[in-house]
């Protein structure tokens, strides 16, 4: 299964097992979404369970909050994460705070899916990684799978969750585990073991990281597309790194992180989002605090630059295996 198919499958199972799950967004109904992640839902469950909305992200999320408070479990799609800003007020001021301010009288169990990240020549409005804009907001959970197996299990968890979950889908991974070598042939999911997705309903708990490569020399903290880029970098510079796929940013699997860094004594953080106040900053703050006495070198961050995402210079901007490799070497030398 590709990641798209896994997401579609999760939707199907969620809607089958729970009548209160409804799916909507721009072009998600008849057409099945511009990335086809909701294909087949409308014809299977009818137009009151899966439908197209007007092009208005605030309306999508705002309506979803009202529905969620009224007993539904909406799972809505924002066409690209870059278009979530019109909905940001509803997400931050409302979805995230409903339970708190009403002392549990009203809640907002909804899932907001959105494709993130670059690597598709999408320019500044089809490439963003705004995860830190969610992790700063108390009341939200923020999840980002890196493979079909996780995508299905995490999406089912997100929909089941009684709190609002931001579900980020690295769009460059939809059709294969991209490792940053844009000039090499594309690897399809079928070649990857985590594309072997069971057909039944299963969940992966939010807040548990996965160690993608065990190692002893340095810990790499990453998520989404960068998991594969980091693995490629590690392979290419032949450093025995431990590569951790966080999968969930809030809640965060701090225990796994601490355990690894205490072991390796070194840490590199990798993400595609811009550097300043990116989620990597929080990871650095936590690691230096909890592993201070184990650290043998400064924690390095390899991230997108503090600029909008360019179009033509995409591969200059995208954190490449080479850049990650350099950081690994620098950390080892530190």
């Amino acid at each position, binding site marked *: 299964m590709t990641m798209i198919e896994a997401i579609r499958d999760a939707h199907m199972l969620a809607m089958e097992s729970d009548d209160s799950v409804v799916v909507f967004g721009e072009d998600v109904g008849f057409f099945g979404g511009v990335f086809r992640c909701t294909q087949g839902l409308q014809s299977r469950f009818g137009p009151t369970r899966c439908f197209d909305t007007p092009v208005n992200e605030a309306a999508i999320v*705002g*309506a979803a909050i009202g529905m969620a408070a*009224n007993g539904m479990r909406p799972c809505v799609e924002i066409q690209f994460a870059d278009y979530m800003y019109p909905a940001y007020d509803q997400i931050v001021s409302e979805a995230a705070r409903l339970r708190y301010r009403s002392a549990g009288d009203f809640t907002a169990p909804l899932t907001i899916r959105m494709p993130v990240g670059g690597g598709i020549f999408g320019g500044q409005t089809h490439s963003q990684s705004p995860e830190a804009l969610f992790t700063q907001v108390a009341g939200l959970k923020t999840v980002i799978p890196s493979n079909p197996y996780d995508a299905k299990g995490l999406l089912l968890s997100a929909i089941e969750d009684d709190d609002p979950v931001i579900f980020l889908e690295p769009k460059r991974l939809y059709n294969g585990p991209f490792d940053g070598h844009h000039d090499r042939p594309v690897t399809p999911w079928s070649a990857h073991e985590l594309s072997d997705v069971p057909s039944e309903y299963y969940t992966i708990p939010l*807040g548990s990281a996965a160690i993608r490569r065990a190692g002893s020399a340095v810990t790499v903290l990453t998520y989404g597309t960068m998991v594969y880029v980091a693995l490629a970098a590690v392979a290419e510079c032949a450093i025995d790194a431990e590569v951790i796929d966080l999968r969930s940013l809030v*809640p965060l699997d701090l225990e796994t992180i601490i355990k690894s860094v205490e072991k390796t004594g070194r840490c590199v953080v990798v993400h595609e989002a811009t550097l300043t106040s990116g989620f990597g900053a929080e990871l650095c703050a936590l690691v230096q605090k909890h592993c201070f006495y184990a650290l043998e070198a400064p924690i390095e961050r390899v991230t997108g630059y503090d600029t909008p995402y360019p179009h033509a210079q995409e591969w200059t901007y995208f954190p490449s295996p080479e850049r990650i490799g350099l950081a690994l070497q620098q950390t080892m030398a530190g």
Partner: protein
Amino acid sequence: MGVFLKMLTNEAEVATPLTLAVPASTCRPGDTPDFSDMVISEPGVVRRPEVTESAQDMHELATELIRVLDDKGNAVGPWAPVIDTAMLVKGLTSMMVTREFDRRMFLAQRQAKTSFFMQSTGEEAISTGFRFAMRDDDMNFPTYRQQSLLIAGGYPLELMMSQIYSNSHDPLRGRQLPGLYSSKDTGFFTLSGNVATQFLQAVGWAMASAIKGSDSVTAAWIGDGSSAESDFFSAMLMASSFQAPVILNLINNQWAISTSQSVVRGQAATFAVRGHGFGLPSLRVDGNDFLAVYAVASWAVERARRNLGPTFIEWVTYRVGAHSSSDDPSAYRPKSEAAAWPLGDPIERLKRHLIASGAWTEDQHADLEGKVKEQVRLAQAVAEEWGTLKSGPGPSPRDIFEDVYADVPEHLQRQRREAGL
């Protein structure tokens, strides 16, 4: 460039310089209050369409003013509702309780028993009358000036006051600004301090009711000023696209803090006409006329209940008090403006109607007033035993870590430990 040339300017003369038309308030301190440009229909003259009539055919209702009570207190015209005296007295009582509640809580704020308060003086008829037209299992998405929805819905005054005092019995555990209540059981959605966001959520709630095949309807509420926020638009749009069983209520009380309703209204004749852009039945109603409120609310609730879709209503009223306890309106509007307000006081008007219809006397009214005062005083006494913001007892500090999520996550547990709580 071959066959293609840069076009030439096709307007020869240079026009006169443009100027910006900055909308001004009708009336500022020192000016004489003036409501003469406000359209006020005579009581009883505006027709009452069938609930099944098309939005298009009732266009004129957005620029007239539906009124039932005339100056003498008689209920006139097609909108005069069938409503028994007991219900009217209940309405009157409820409005009077709200007014006394407001008076006492405003005073309590001045006495530092709480940090903040917002009165609804002069606007009591709207939420009271509307609530009377709803079922208990219907839902409201209120603004912060609609304590009447709770009071008319039978929610205990002591609990409202406890919320205002953030005391040991505060149902919201001290977390919310005074007046931002929540009561699902009373059909009162948790209030946000951000205006307009919930006007949109109301449509979502109503859509869910429709998806579930329930038969309860939803009322969304917004102020004239707040209707400038984008979520107002999103709500109107979604309601129009999905024909949600929702009543979209706009309370035009003439002011948004210091800014006159005319700034937001712009070139539109009324707020009600905004609904025309979405093909919604749009009505403009005298909000100080309890009978008109009840009648129009019942009509709109029936439309929603019968799956005939959303209704948009502009309720015309006047914010008699300050915007909030932090505000002093004498800085931006003439003190005499409230007195010049042409639609009178809703309590006085309903009282006059009851007396005119022979169902009520001045003595009965004085008696009721005494009882209302006593009821509110007693409630306050109970609430103050449960604590005030100034003197406690309050909610637990530990409470701040709960309800962020369904369960307290690890990182919050850590922070709670660090806080020693």
